[in-house]
C-alpha cells in the first residue's frame, strides 16, 4: 500500500463523519444537477425532476455501503459499527440483556468451575515437571485367587530391582507422602511430608531457591542422612524467608533433620493439592520407620510396601516397550523374592507383570469414586451449559421475532442480508462474551464450594488466575455465542419483505416457531435427565445413611498413640496403655473408655484360623479381629446377641476368650451352637480361643455387601502392649477430641504423642462419594430446573404478549378468565410434557451407567421417575400461570384497539 493510500484510509477510518459528509455533498450535487437537467430537457417541475433523479440514482444506503467497501476499511469499520449497534441494542433492553447474561454466566460458570477440578484431578501434569508425557507411575500386577491385583505401592527393594534391571528409563525415583508430626512440644503439628529418593528432583525443572537437594549418597541404605529440603511455602510462613535457614534443625517424625535447601516457588512434587512442608530422603525415613520389620532389613524386604515409583521413558521408547521392560524386571525381582520367601505364590500362578500408568493418582487403574463422581458432575455441568444455550437461543429468537418489522424495514432501506446477519451474530457473540466474563466470576465465587468438596483443603486452585481454566471458559463462551447466534440467523432467512412490512406490530411477530418449540422440549428433556440423576443420588444417600453399622459412631472418638521414636519394650508399653485407659475413663465428659487395636474402615488385622472339622477356614473368607477390653461393646453400642462379651475374667493367663459376629458364627458352624467352640489363631498348634459370645454384625470394610466376618478377643490376652482407645463422650466430639488430647498427652513419654479423631469422621469418608454425588446432582439439577422454568416462562410470556389481540377477541367472544388461563397454561404444559416424556425415556436408557455409583438403589426407581415428571410439570404449569393470569386480565376493548 502506498503512503498516500494508507493516509487516505486512515483518514476514512478516523474521520468518518467528515468523509461521509463529503460523500453526502457529492451525492447531493449529483442529484441536483440531474434534476436541473431534467427540468431543462423535459420541462418537468423541479419536484418531479428531483424525484426522478433519486429513482435513477438507486438505493442510497446500499450505495454508501459499496462506497465504504471501496475505501478498503469497510470490513473493519463495519465490525466496529456492528459492535456499537449491538451494545446500543443491549443497553436499550436491560431486562433481556441481564436475563441472557445471567443464564450464560450460570452455564459457563458451572462448567469453568468443574473444569478446574476435573483438570486438576485427571489431566494436569504436576507443575514444573519436564516432559510430563514421558513420565509414568509404575504399576505391578499379580494374580491372587484368580483376581488380578494392580498395585502401585511397592517395597524399597522392588524399587532398587526395577531401577537396576530396566533399560527403558532415563530416571526412576521412589516417592511417598506421609502425614508426620512436625515440630516439638506443644507446637507439634501433623503435616504432609514428601518422602522421595534423591532422583525425584531430576523429574522437574526446579533448581532450589536456596541451598541444594540431597545426593544419592545421602539417600542410601542402611541409614540415609538426616537432611531435609523445605518447601517454599513452609520456608516463607515458618521462617519468614530467612536465608540463614540452611543449617537449622527441624524435627520431622522421630528424626531431627538439618535443612540443606529450599524448593523453588510453585514446586509441590507430585502433590500440588496437598503440598508437602518438606522433602526428606526415602532411606532416612525408611530407616526410622522400618525398625520393627520381622527379622528383615527395610531395604531387602519385599513386604513393606509403602511407596510409589515414578519413571521417565527415554525419548523414542514406546509405552509398550517400557511395559515389556518393566515386566521383565519385575519377573526377575519376583524370582529374587521367592528365594527369601518361599511361601509366596509361584510365578505360574501369580503371573507377575508390570506397566507404566498415569502419573496422576486419580487416573486409573484405581480411579477413585471421587474422580468418577467429578467426571460425572463435569458431564452434568455440560448439560446445564446446553440448557443455558437453549434458553439463550430461545430468548434471542423471541427478540428476533419481535424485531421482524424492524428487520424488514432495514432490508427495504437497502441493508444487505449478510450485513444484517452479521449484526445479529455480533450481538450473540457479545452476549456470550459478557456471559463468559460473568461466568468466570460465578466459577470463582460459587466454585469455592465445589473445590472444597473435591480437592484437598490445602489446594491452591483458583479460576481467575488459571490460564487453562480461563481458556476453557472463553471457549465455552464463544461456542455458546456461535450456537445461540445461529438461531436468529436462520430467522433472517425467512423474512418476507412485503408481508412483514404490511403486517405491522401484531402480525409481524406472533407465529409458531418449530425451532423454539424444539428448544423448549430439549430443555425440559435435559432437566428431567439431571433431576432423575439427582433423585437417584439422594435416594442412595438416604440408603447409605440408613445402613446399620452395628455400632454407633456419633459419640465415639478414637485415641491413637503415635510412639515416634520411643521404642518401649512390651512391659512399659502395656503399663502405659493401662495408665492411659484409666486416665481417659476419668476425663469429665468421657462416659466410657475401651481398649482397641483396629478401626473399622481404616485398618484390619487378620489371621489364618483353625477350627476342627473345617479343612480350610481361609477359603470361607477373610476374618478380621479387634482386641478389646470389657467396656468395648457398651462404648461402641454393639449388641451381644448370645453368651457374653469380653470380661475382666479374660485376663492374661486365663483361657483365651473370643466373641464372634453372627455372620462368622453362621459361616463356621452353620448347624451348630457357636458358644464354647474352639478356634486357634495363626497356627493349629497354639492353644484354643473359646467362643464366649456372639455379637451383632458390624460393617468394617464397606458399607455395601460387607461379609461381616468379625471377631473380638481380649486386649489382655492379645498384644496387650499395642493399640489405642475408643472413648464414648458427651457433647460434641469435635470439642471433646481436644479435651481428650490435652488430658492424655502429658502421660506420653518422650516425643510420642496422641491423636484423637471422632470416628464419625472416619465413617463420613465412606459416605463421602454419595454425599458429594447427591449434593452436586441436586445443585446442578436445581440449576437446570430454574433455567428450564425461566425458559418456559419467557416463551409463554412472550407468546402471550404477542397474542393479546387474539386473546382479546376470544374474551370478546365470551371466553371466561378461566378459559384463557387454561388455554395458556395448557400451551406451556404441553411443551413440558413432551420434554418430560423424552427425558424419562433418555434417563431410563442412560441411568444404568451411574448404577455403580448408586447405593442399593435401582437406576430405574419408578418413584424417582414419577416424582421428577410431576415436579417438572408442576413447575411448567406455574411458569405458564403467571403470564396466563396477565393474559386473562386483558381488557378486550384495549386489546382490540391496539395498534
Amino acid at each position: 500500500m502506498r503512503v498516500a493510500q494508507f493516509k487516505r484510509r486512515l483518514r476514512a477510518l478516523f474521520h468518518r463523519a467528515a468523509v461521509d459528509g463529503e460523500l453526502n455533498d457529492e451525492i447531493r450535487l449529483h442529484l441536483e444537477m440531474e434534476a436541473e437537467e431534467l427540468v431543462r430537457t423535459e420541462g418537468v417541475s423541479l419536484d418531479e425532476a428531483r424525484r426522478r433523479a433519486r429513482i435513477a440514482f438507486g438505493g442510497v444506503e446500499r450505495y454508501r455501503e459499496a462506497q465504504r467497501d471501496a475505501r478498503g476499511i469497510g470490513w473493519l469499520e463495519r465490525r466496529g459499527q456492528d459492535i456499537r449497534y449491538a451494545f446500543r441494542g443491549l443497553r436499550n433492553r436491560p431486562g433481556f440483556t441481564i436475563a441472557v447474561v445471567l443464564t450464560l454466566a450460570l452455564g459457563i460458570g458451572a462448567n469453568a468451575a468443574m473444569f478446574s477440578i476435573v483438570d486438576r484431578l485427571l489431566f494436569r501434569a504436576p507443575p514444573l515437571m519436564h516432559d510430563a508425557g514421558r513420565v509414568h507411575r509404575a504399576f505391578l500386577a499379580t494374580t491372587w485367587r484368580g483376581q488380578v491385583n494392580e498395585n502401585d505401592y511397592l517395597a524399597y527393594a522392588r524399587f532398587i530391582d526395577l531401577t537396576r534391571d530396566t533399560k527403558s528409563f532415563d530416571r526412576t525415583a521412589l516417592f511417598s507422602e506421609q502425614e508426620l508430626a512436625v515440630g516439638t512440644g506443644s507446637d507439634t503439628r501433623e503435616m504432609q511430608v514428601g518422602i522421595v529418593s534423591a532422583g525425584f528432583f531430576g523429574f522437574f525443572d526446579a533448581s532450589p531457591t536456596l541451598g541444594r537437594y540431597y545426593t544419592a549418597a545421602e539417600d542410601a541404605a542402611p541409614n540415609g542422612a538426616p537432611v531435609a529440603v523445605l518447601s517454599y511455602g513452609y520456608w516463607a510462613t515458618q521462617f519468614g524467608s530467612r536465608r540463614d535457614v540452611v543449617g537449622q534443625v527441624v524435627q520431622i517424625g522421630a528424626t531431627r533433620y538439618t535443612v540443606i535447601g529450599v524448593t523453588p516457588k510453585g514446586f509441590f512434587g507430585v502433590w500440588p493439592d496437598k503440598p508437602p512442608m518438606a522433602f526428606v530422603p526415602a532411606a532416612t525415613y525408611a530407616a526410622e520407620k522400618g525398625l520393627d520389620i520381622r527379622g528383615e532389613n527395610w531395604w531387602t524386604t519385599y513386604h513393606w510396601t509403602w511407596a510409589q515409583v515414578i519413571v521417565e521413558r527415554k525419548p523414542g521408547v514406546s509405552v509398550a516397550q517400557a511395559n515389556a521392560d518393566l515386566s521383565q524386571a519385575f519377573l526377575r525381582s519376583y524370582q529374587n523374592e521367592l528365594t527369601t520367601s518361599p511361601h509366596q505364590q509361584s510365578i505360574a500362578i501369580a503371573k507377575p507383570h508390570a506397566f507404566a500408568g498415569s502419573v496422576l493418582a486419580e487416573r486409573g487403574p484405581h480411579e477413585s469414586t471421587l474422580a468418577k463422581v467429578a467426571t460425572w458432575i463435569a458431564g452434568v455441568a455440560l448439560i446445564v451449559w446446553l440448557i443455558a444455550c437453549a434458553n439463550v437461543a430461545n430468548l434471542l429468537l423471541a427478540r428476533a421475532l419481535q424485531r421482524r418489522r424492524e428487520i424488514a424495514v432495514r432490508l427495504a432501506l437497502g441493508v444487505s442480508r449478510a450485513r444484517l446477519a452479521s449484526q445479529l451474530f455480533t450481538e450473540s457473540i457479545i452476549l456470550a462474551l459478557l456471559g463468559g466474563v460473568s461466568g468466570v466470576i460465578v466459577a470463582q465465587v460459587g466454585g469455592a464450594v465445589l473445590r472444597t468438596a473435591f480437592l484437598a483443603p490445602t489446594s491452591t486452585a483458583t479460576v481467575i488466575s488459571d490460564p487453562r481454566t480461563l481458556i476453557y471458559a472463553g471457549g465455552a463462551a464463544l461456542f455458546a455465542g456461535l450456537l445461540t447466534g445461529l438461531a436468529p440467523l436462520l430467522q433472517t432467512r425467512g423474512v418476507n419483505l412485503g408481508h412483514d412490512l404490511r403486517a405491522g406490530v401484531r402480525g409481524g411477530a406472533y407465529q409458531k416457531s418449530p425451532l423454539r418449540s424444539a428448544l423448549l422440549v430439549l430443555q425440559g428433556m435435559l432437566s428431567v435427565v439431571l433431576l432423575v440423576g439427582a433423585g437417584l443420588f439422594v435416594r442412595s444417600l438416604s440408603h447409605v445413611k440408613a445402613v446399620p453399622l452395628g455400632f454407633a459412631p456419633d459419640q465415639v472418638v478414637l485415641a491413637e498413640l503415635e510412639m515416634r521414636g520411643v521404642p518401649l519394650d512390651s512391659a512399659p508399653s502395656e503399663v502405659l496403655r493401662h495408665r492411659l485407659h484409666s486416665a481417659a475413663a476419668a476425663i469429665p465428659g468421657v462416659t466410657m473408655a475401651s481398649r482397641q487395636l483396629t478401626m473399622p474402615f481404616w485398618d484390619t488385622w487378620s489371621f489364618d484360623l483353625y477350627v476342627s472339622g473345617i479343612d480350610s477356614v481361609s477359603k470361607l473368607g477373610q476374618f478380621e479381629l479387634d482386641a478389646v477390653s470389657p467396656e468395648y461393646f457398651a462404648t461402641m453400642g454393639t449388641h451381644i446377641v448370645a453368651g457374653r462379651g469380653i470380661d475382666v475374667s479374660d485376663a492374661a493367663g486365663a483361657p483365651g476368650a473370643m466373641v464372634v459376629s453372627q455372620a462368622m458364627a453362621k459361616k463356621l458352624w452353620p448347624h451348630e451352637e457357636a458358644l464354647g467352640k474352639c478356634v486357634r489363631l495363626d497356627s493349629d498348634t497354639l492353644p484354643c480361643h473359646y467362643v464366649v459370645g456372639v455379637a451383632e454384625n458390624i460393617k468394617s470394610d464397606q458399607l455395601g455387601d460387607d461379609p461381616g466376618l468379625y471377631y473380638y478377643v481380649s486386649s489382655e490376652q492379645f498384644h496387650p502392649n499395642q493399640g489405642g482407645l475408643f472413648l464414648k463422650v458427651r457433647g460434641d466430639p469435635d470439642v471433646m477430641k481436644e479435651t481428650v488430647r490435652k488430658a492424655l498427652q502429658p502421660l506420653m513419654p518422650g516425643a510420642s504423642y496422641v491423636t484423637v479423631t471422632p470416628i464419625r469422621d472416619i465413617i463420613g469418608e465412606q459416605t463421602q462419594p454419595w454425599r458429594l454425588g447427591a449434593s452436586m446432582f441436586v445443585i446442578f439439577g436445581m440449576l437446570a430446573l430454574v433455567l428450564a422454568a425461566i425458559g418456559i416462562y419467557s416463551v409463554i410470556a412472550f407468546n402471550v404478549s404477542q397474542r393479546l389481540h387474539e386473546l382479546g377477541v376470544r374474551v370478546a367472544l365470551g371466553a371466561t378468565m378461566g378459559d384463557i388461563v387454561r388455554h395458556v397454561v395448557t400451551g406451556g404444559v404441553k411443551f413440558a410434557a413432551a420434554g418430560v416424556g423424552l427425558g424419562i425415556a433418555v434417563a431410563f436408557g442412560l441411568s444404568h451407567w451411574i448404577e455403580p455409583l448408586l447405593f442399593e438403589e435401582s437406576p430405574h426407581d419408578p418413584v424417582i421417575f414419577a416424582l421428577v415428571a410431576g415436579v417438572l410439570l408442576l413447575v411448567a404449569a406455574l411458569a405458564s400461570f403467571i403470564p396466563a393470569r396477565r393474559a386473562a386480565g386483558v381488557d378486550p376493548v384495549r386489546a382490540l384497539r391496539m395498534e
Partner: protein
Amino acid sequence: MANRADLLQGTLDLLVLKALLLGPLHGWAITKRLAALSDDVLNVGQGSLYPALYRLEDQGWISSEWGISAEGRRTKTYTLTALGRKQLASERSAWRLFAAAVEQVLHAS
C-alpha cells in the same frame, strides 16, 4: 477466468479513465460525457460510478479536489494522474485484445 461482474467492473474503470483523459470532470459530468461519447448507448449507473471513482482514487490513478464551480456550487473534480494514464494505456490494449478475440470468435464460420 474472469467472471461477468469482474469484466463489467474492469470496463467501467476503463471508461472512466478515458472520460477523464479528455479533461477534469466532476461525478455527474462523467456520466454525461460517457453517455454523449457513446451516443447514449452506455448509461453508467450512478450507484456503481462513485464506488468506482473511490476505487480508482485509492489506486492512485485519479486524484480529486474540492472546488467551486462556475455556478458557485461546491464540487468535487476528478483529474487523471500520470499513473492513471499508464493504466489507461495498458487497459486499452487489454480491451482491444479482448474485443478482437471476441469478434474473431463471433465471425468464425
